[in-house]
């Protein structure tokens, strides 16, 4: 094939627009139907979750012992739970917590993952070997076991959950970053920068970071989806967000009880549906971003 975008024999003076690689990736992203659908799902959920206190009359922790386990109605749109709390309000608050946990943990694991990967790839063979052994160790530890032990130390609650999830997820990223940077280190334009006397910070932040941005963005979205699932799993095992604080995970935990599963399905079905939908949408977005950042997608 000789007709490819690698062959942009466009006369620059004839082509009026100048788009950076990020802009082009975004353009491609918005052309992706699944990604658009993902955005269409996530944005309203985000909006609702972040503003619900302004327009929804119930508070997530207000109990009403006279109205427990009531099904969806005009007052409680999504019904009420075992102590008469409004499921809608808890769903929104739970979304806040779940998303907060996911976003924070991903942010932390990105910082750790990038720095570890960067140090390993630019730090010389010995550092690389040592760091990667350590990463291997962290990956040998089956995640849920690590998590069980960590969670029982750190306890339950938002901050420990964030800590646990971020500690769990950085090794994968650091491997990806390392692989990318090892490859990047040999790329001509990085060699050129070294040839001009560039030091480690310059290489890392002027070349390393921008060229890892795709990995980071894609990892971030996919990992947010993953972190939501992890939080749910942790809460399910009783190690994540503890009630009465709401999270999608601990709301789903109610389905363990056969009575709730069977007779009060609104208590788990709505959080379940919203969780799956959100994770699905974020996965769509992540996938869309991955395609958008893939230089080969220019071909199609």
């Amino acid at each position, binding site marked *: 094939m000789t007709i490819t975008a690698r062959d942009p024999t466009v006369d620059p003076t004839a082509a009026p627009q100048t788009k950076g690689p990020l802009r082009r990736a975004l353009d491609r992203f918005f052309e992706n139907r699944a990604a658009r659908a993902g955005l269409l799902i996530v944005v309203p959920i985000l909006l609702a979750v972040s503003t619900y206190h302004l327009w929804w009359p119930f508070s997530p922790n207000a109990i009403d012992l006279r109205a427990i386990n009531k099904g969806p109605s005009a007052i409680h749109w999504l019904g009420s739970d075992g102590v008469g709390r409004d499921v809608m309000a808890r769903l929104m608050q739970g979304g806040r917590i779940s998303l907060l946990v996911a976003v924070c943990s991903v942010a932390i694991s990105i910082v750790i993952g990038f720095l570890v990967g960067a140090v390993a790839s630019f730090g010389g063979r010995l550092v690389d070997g040592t760091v990667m052994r350590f990463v291997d160790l962290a990956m040998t530890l089956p995640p849920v076991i690590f998590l069980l032990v960590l969670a029982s130390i750190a306890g339950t609650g938002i901050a420990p959950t964030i800590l646990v999830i971020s500690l769990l997820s950085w090794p994968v990223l650091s491997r990806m970053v390392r692989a990318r940077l090892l490859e990047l280190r040999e790329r001509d334009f990085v060699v050129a920068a070294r040839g001009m006397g560039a030091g480690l910070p310059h290489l890392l932040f002027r070349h390393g970071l921008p060229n890892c941005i795709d990995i980071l963005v894609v990892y971030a979205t996919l990992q947010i989806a993953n972190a939501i699932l992890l939080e749910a799993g942790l809460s399910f095992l*009783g190690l994540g967000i503890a009630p009465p604080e709401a999270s999608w995970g601990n709301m789903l935990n109610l389905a363990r009880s056969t009575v709730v599963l069977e007779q009060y399905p609104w208590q788990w079905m709505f959080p379940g549906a919203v969780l799956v939908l959100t994770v699905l949408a974020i996965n769509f977005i992540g996938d869309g971003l991955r395609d958008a950042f893939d230089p080969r997608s220019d071909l199609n």
Partner: protein
Amino acid sequence: MRIKTIARHLAITGLLLGGLATSVQAQGAKTITGGFDVGPGGFPKNFNPLAATGGFTWLSTYFEPLVIYNAELTELEGDLAKDYTVGDDQLTYTFNLVQETWHDGKPFTSKDVKFTLELARNKASGSLFAARLGDIASVDAPDDRTVVVKLSKPNGSFLSILSQVMILPEHALAGMPPETLATSTWWSTTPVGTGPFKFNRYVSDQYVELAADDDYRSGKPKVDVLINRYFESPAAAVAALRAGEIQFTYVEPDDAVSFKSDSNFKVIEGASYVVNYIGLNQKVELFRDVRVRQAIMHAIDRNAIIESLYGGAAKPANCGYVAPHLLPEGLEPYAYDPAKAKALLAEAGWEKINGDKPITLLTYYGSPQAANVMAAIQSMLAEVGINVVPRVVDTPTYNGIVYKEGTPDWNAFAMVYAGLQNGPNPAGISPGLNKSQIPPAGFNTMRIEFDDLSAALDAALGQTDPAKIDKSWQEVCKVMNKDLPWATLWVANRYGVASNKLRDFVWTPAPAGGPYAAHPERWDIQ
């Protein structure tokens, strides 16, 4: 290569068919399968009665103690002891033993009892009874059917403790050094008891299977096989029960509700003998003022919680007891009155003491119901201006926090939502309230140092006159009601669900699983 794969497929198919064939053959044996170690009374995967802190419902199907509570948990009756007498000095206990043989055919004699009691008192064996049986001065076996136990000082709980000591066969265990008993495989492979069923096998982490002991003294058991299945959670057991795989299990109150309307099942309900309370750490400045404690009592609408979250199946507690014979006249009922609670708090200067800073409400109760209860309490306390934040931890974490030696971080457990056994022996609550029981000595983990309460408890514990004993405990109740060492909440009911196929099935939600006279030999299945 292709022929090899085909051959392999054939082999696998053959294996499957063969497997089917073996499972098709019907089992004529009458079997009851249950989740006997599900719930708070169980202690799954423990086979050593000397190390048991629960699970006696199941252990007593193949082991037996000398004396046992009746199924209503109101009185102790003889089991391996046909009857017993207590000397006037309350120091000498004489047991007359029944005629029984061990499952391996050897006769059961007084030597076994002497052996067991001595083993149970021996720390080296890893026995948890060593300290509790510390008052025993001597054990004598004057003849094969008589055992005489002498105490060094009177102990009103002695028989109650004995009811959990399963008698073990001397002939099987005497040969093993006591130190090795705790790690011996005997318990889970070839234990020998005197109960109506004998140990058949243990399939690791799955179930224990017992077989009828044909020459049991009260008659041959009606079913041939008794199986105890292990479940990770009550919910899993409920699933198995509804799927028809088991005939009995403990269930959470929520689940009990859905079984009540189902004609295939019978719901068994009983008092838990555990009083739930909000423990208020006395090492913390917050709860020194009795008016604060009173305010907490007034702030919580216990009746509403009992009505809605327990479906009415709990009794509000205004002291450590709810049993009528332990309740004195004129107890303050601490009715729900948020206005009064606010007034009391204002009077005590709560704004200054704490204000609306969050206080952790620690608990080891992980059930959905407990979560609801705590949510309700949080909300009700918030109403009067006490900001509590529930924190659920697992049992070891809870104990690790509240028992911690050295200088514990008091703020980590300013408040707890907990429960304590208050029966069938009323002495059960003493270690949680008596100032002599402050850790590391005992488990007065809330560090309650009320002199009048300790005095009342000591008096009741020292009371040897059976006629005055209830009165003494009523006094304890009165002091508790006044001083409010805890904010006492209620004693809830617990539930078991049995299939309607079961006949003459007895189960009681006893603390630690009893033991109680359940008479498994009479259980039957259609």
